[in-house]
């Protein structure tokens, strides 16, 4: 009897121990995001000679709940690639290589060279210090702190590719001093759905992408804002005004960036179809795009002026604006040609049939009376 009681109690205890954990594991719908850091971007304003302190909160969401992860941080300079807002990481071949003008990697120091993340959900506040040198001109300087699991990771084995995953937090420091802020709109490009500028800026359908290449000539990062005014026949009454850079993206000091706004507000628009790799050749040729009819939207046809106004504030917080203009034409010429072609074919067929009828009628008229009605005459 006592054995039975012990057995039952053991089973109950086992269930009690296991059940909560299994329930928990099922309920948590984790996205398995791997390494996580916040903030993604950190900005400081500093005086020359000042020491700044900051923190990245680091945690992990690897599939294995109880995994402990060793993290090795290091700082690295980055710059703009002149087109996008993606950091271009800079590797110096040796310590004597000259640093880029906005270099900051040597200003950053850490309390620890490495740290360990405990199981999922536990975080580590990684503290760093930035010592801003005294002998600087003003402006924005930048670097990233990169967190990696495998700092010296090298693939081992046969025919194996080793994969390191690094996650970077970006840091910008705007240093007091002689600061300049100046933007120029270098180029306004208009492109179609494939990113191609058509001949004579002649578009068949919307969307039309307005791509602004903006140059920051100053030594401070600028996040410009502005509007793209679209007008036709001198009026903006039935055309939209588009805002650009609503997300507040930056143009780094002494670099350029292309910012894009898409005009998609028309009765006819086209969208790209996603085709499978093994899609039939017919689809690959004729089914790449879908023509959308947007009822209630205006029919876009003719010449349109695109006026761009790029706004920013200078170092005195005074409002500045730069303008640019381009003219485009919207005409679904292939569709018009197709319709014209159909009409021409129809007319040709009509004419041909009319001639044929006339010819038959003429032939019929030329048949002698006796021959035409011979049957009745015989009777």
């Amino acid at each position: 009897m006592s054995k039975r009681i012990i057995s039952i109690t053991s089973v109950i205890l086992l269930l009690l121990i296991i059940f909560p954990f299994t329930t928990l594991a099922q309920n948590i719908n984790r996205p398995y995001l791997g390494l996580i850091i916040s903030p993604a971007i950190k900005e400081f304003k500093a005086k020359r000679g000042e020491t700044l302190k900051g923190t990245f909160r680091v945690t992990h969401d690897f599939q294995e709940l109880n995994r402990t992860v060793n993290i090795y941080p290091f700082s690295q300079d980055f710059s703009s690639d002149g087109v996008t807002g993606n950091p271009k990481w800079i590797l110096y071949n040796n310590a004597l290589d000259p640093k880029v003008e906005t270099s900051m990697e040597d200003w950053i120091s850490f309390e620890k060279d490495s740290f360990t993340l405990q199981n999922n959900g536990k975080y580590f506040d990684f503290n760093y210090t930035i010592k801003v040198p005294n002998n600087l001109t003003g402006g924005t300087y930048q670097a990233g702190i990169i967190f990696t699991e495998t700092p010296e990771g090298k693939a081992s084995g046969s025919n194996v590719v080793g994969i390191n995953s690094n996650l970077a937090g970006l840091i910008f420091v705007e240093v007091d001093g002689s600061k300049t802020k100046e933007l120029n709109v270098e180029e306004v490009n208009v492109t179609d759905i494939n990113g191609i500028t058509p001949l004579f800026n002649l578009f068949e359908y919307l969307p039309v992408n307005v791509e602004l290449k903006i140059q920051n000539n100053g030594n401070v990062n600028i996040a410009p804002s502005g509007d793209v005014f679209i007008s036709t026949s001198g009026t903006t009454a039935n055309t939209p005004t588009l805002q650009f850079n609503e997300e507040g993206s930056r143009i780094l000091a002494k670099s350029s960036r292309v910012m894009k706004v898409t005009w998609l507000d028309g009765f006819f628009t086209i969208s790209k179809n996603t085709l499978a790799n093994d899609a039939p050749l017919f689809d690959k040729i004729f089914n790449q795009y879908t023509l959308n009819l947007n009822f209630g939207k205006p029919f876009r046809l003719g010449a349109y002026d695109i006026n761009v106004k790029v706004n920013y504030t200078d170092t005195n917080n005074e409002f500045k604006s730069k303008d640019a203009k381009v003219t485009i034409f919207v005409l679904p010429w292939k569709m018009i040609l197709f319709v014209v072609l159909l009409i021409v074919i129809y007319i040709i067929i009509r004419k041909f049939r009319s001639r044929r009828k006339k010819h038959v009628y003429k032939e019929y008229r030329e048949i002698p009376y006796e021959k035409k009605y011979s049957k009745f005459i015989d009777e």
Partner: protein
Amino acid sequence: MNLKKLVSIGLSLVIIVSILPISFVKAAGVPLIITGASSATSTAYNSTITFVPGSAMSTNYTITLYYSSSYTDTSLVNGNVALTKTGDGGFTSATTAVDITNNLIVFTLTTSAPTNTTNPFIITFSGSNFLTPATGGNYTFSVITNNNSGTQLDIGSALQYVGNTNQVLVTANVVPTITFNIRNTADNAEQATIAGLKTCALGNQSLTAIATCSYRLKVGTNSASGYSVSYLSSTNGLTNGSHNMTDAAATTGSTPAAAGVEQYGILLGAGSATGGTVTRGTAFGGAGATVTNIFNIANTGSTELLSSNGLNGPAPTDTTNTSLVTHTLTINAGTPIGAYTQTVSYTASASF
């Protein structure tokens, strides 16, 4: 005898049951509804108070409204308060008598017939002579109705919430975050590792087969400007130390070579982002390239692989909002033997 008892008890019960509801109606608590039940402090009380009476009322019956002494009523006059009863033909009018000393208002009814118990009485305040209290809190309005003998008929009360003392400000701060993981092709497990390093094994090579291995780059961010991923190769492609596999073309890419032709590179399925568009880096064909083209992955300098112009929140198993990298290798008869390796470091960050 028993029958008599039963009849007596039954009759008593009938009498009690028939009386009880009437007594309850007479003593009814009627619900009071205040429009603008929540109000700012020291503002004009331009609200209405309504209630459906539980008892019929006739001429000279009264309705008394009691309010808190915390309300500012120094300028309140009879003309600022009115009582109506829409939809009841028995109701004719009501006179208003404001008593600011005792913080009450008495309405005396004139009726053509007893009022019904379906249409509500409506007490309306107008003007700006009656102000809510200066101090936030919950304040009571009560209504008592009496017949012309002073007998109480209905009673009801309701609260007006003044100020924000009964409000809870809920705040939450979502910090900008970026995440990065390298997952297997199906995104249902972490990519396999050798000695702690995630790996992609191409296996033993054959002259008659194309060797491939793949994994997913899973980036998540709530940064409105999106994210980017760049790569860096430790070596000039796949190498055994003395021989580098022939790299696929960069920038434009090409159709992967057939088995028997030496070529090494990657096929990139850029994937999507939940809140943006994913674009391949220019070294991987840019916007026009397709997943079927093979590209060089041998740059020993930082090279952009792909980027998104908006946020991304991938699901636990997500083969849509993640990017698929497939390493592809073919060899020819002259490819030197050896253990070939390459280490590729991916760096993910928010776009600025």
